[in-house]
């Protein structure tokens, strides 16, 4: 066990806050400011109890609470940080998830859960924002993105077949989509309009993301356009990861926005 993790945790015996709460809040703060990074192993309950000179029960309670709040997970008897934040550029630039996973320092991989051609009725297309499909035919893919073999985000895409002729035969399913589109069709996504909200995970999606049913997640729907303003993709994702974004809203930007509105 790295001794440095132990050194980071302390308790204040004069405080009116109980010890397990203090341990939990200490750990949480270290995880949120990324002193304890994704996948860091935590000390065993015995080690930490001995270090802080408290009962093992105190540490057990703190760890259980952190599992409940989904900051840590237990694997093969070891508690490990499971909290993860996608980098800011994933949010405010149109970055491929694949690249965002690499930016986290993880090895990305993609599992294709489903790929098929679907026909959508005009009402559904309108809701998604597609206005010009001649036949309502779309290539549908549903894929799970992993970082170091841990599921991070599940993403469905609807790609109009008249924009991507032949994709249903040639796209295997596990390739990064943006690169594939550029290599085969010669254009890129230029703009993405996103709506995100917090939702509870259904049993099915929770199972795929290795989370409990009802775990809070971020649902994001994306309408993606090319440089000519043509809508080329509708995507919907669920992720338990946080988005660390908008690192800066400067005073100047805020004043400008306030004036405009």
């Amino acid at each position, binding site marked *: 066990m790295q001794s440095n993790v132990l050194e980071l945790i302390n308790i204040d015996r004069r405080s009116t806050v109980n010890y397990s709460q203090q341990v939990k809040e200490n750990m949480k703060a270290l995880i949120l400011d990324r002193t304890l990074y994704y996948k860091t192993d935590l000390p065993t309950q015995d080690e930490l109890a001995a270090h802080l000179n408290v009962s093992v029960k105190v540490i057990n309670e703190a760890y259980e609470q952190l599992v409940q709040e989904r900051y840590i997970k237990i694997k093969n008897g070891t508690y490990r940080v499971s909290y993860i934040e996608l980098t800011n550029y994933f949010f405010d630039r149109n970055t491929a998830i694949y690249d965002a996973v690499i930016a986290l320092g993880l090895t990305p991989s993609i599992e294709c859960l489903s790929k098929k051609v679907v026909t959508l009725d005009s009402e559904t297309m309108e809701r998604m924002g597609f206005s010009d499909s001649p036949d309502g035919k779309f290539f549908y893919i549903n894929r799970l993105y992993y970082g170091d073999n841990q599921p991070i985000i599940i993403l469905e895409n609807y790609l109009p077949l008249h924009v991507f002729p032949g994709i249903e035969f040639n796209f295997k399913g596990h390739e990064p989509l943006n690169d594939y589109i550029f290599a085969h069709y010669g254009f890129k996504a230029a*703009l*993405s309009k996103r709506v995100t909200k917090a939702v509870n995970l259904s049993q099915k999606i929770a199972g795929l993301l290795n989370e409990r049913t009802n775990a809070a997640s971020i649902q994001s729907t994306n309408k993606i356009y090319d440089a000519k303003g043509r809508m080329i993709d509708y995507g919907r994702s669920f992720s338990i990861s946080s988005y660390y974004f908008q690192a800066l809203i400067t005073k100047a930007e*805020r004043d400008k926005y306030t004036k405009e509105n």
Partner: protein
Amino acid sequence: MMDYIHINKLITKSIYKQIADSITEAIDKGELQYNDKLPTEKEICQLFSISQTVVKKAYEQLILDGKIRRIKGKGTYVTNRDVIKTDLHSFYNFEIMNQENESKITKETIILDRSNKDISSIRELKLKNDEKYYLIVNLFKSKHNPILLQRIYLPMKYYKKLDTLFDSNFDIFQLIEHTYHYDFTHMHSSFSPINASKADSLLLNIEADDALYLVRTKMIDSKDNVICYICNYYPGEFTEFEVTVHAI
């Protein structure tokens, strides 16, 4: 009582759509209100002698439309609270939210305190263990429904005599820039999904464990001090953030 559901089997309009439309209409007219319980699928199919698949389809449509929700083990409920749509680049500015949603947003301060108990906030504010902060807890409502629970942490050393100056109508930017003359340069936010605690769910009038959007914001001044830390809890079901992102 389910007199708001009307079915005419003699017309071509599909029955599931008739059910979905009648319930939508009842919600729009106010006959059905937020948190009203709807009949079970079985009750509807017995009363109208229709198959349960049809009712199921109607309810699924209404769930997709965001009109109703199922609570496991309890039943199906109306969920027509206003959804607040906010541009991510201005999420902190409630005056703008007011204009865009055309509904009056009210703010109540429910707690004003001095403390040093919240370890995460102490760290975010770069305070020492014995340094205290002011805690202000605000609840924002739209049409009597809570839309935001806000905890504001202000280090006491930067806000001398705040207790005597405090006014529940204060605007946080006003306070920082005009009352205390800090040269606020930027703010730093991160967005994460969390499950509502029992206490937070009571304040926000949602179920415990419902998804919340937690937005943590740090405000930094020209001396690189963290002059304010805010935790905003938005009920997930009623808040959408919109953002337009450009490729690089």
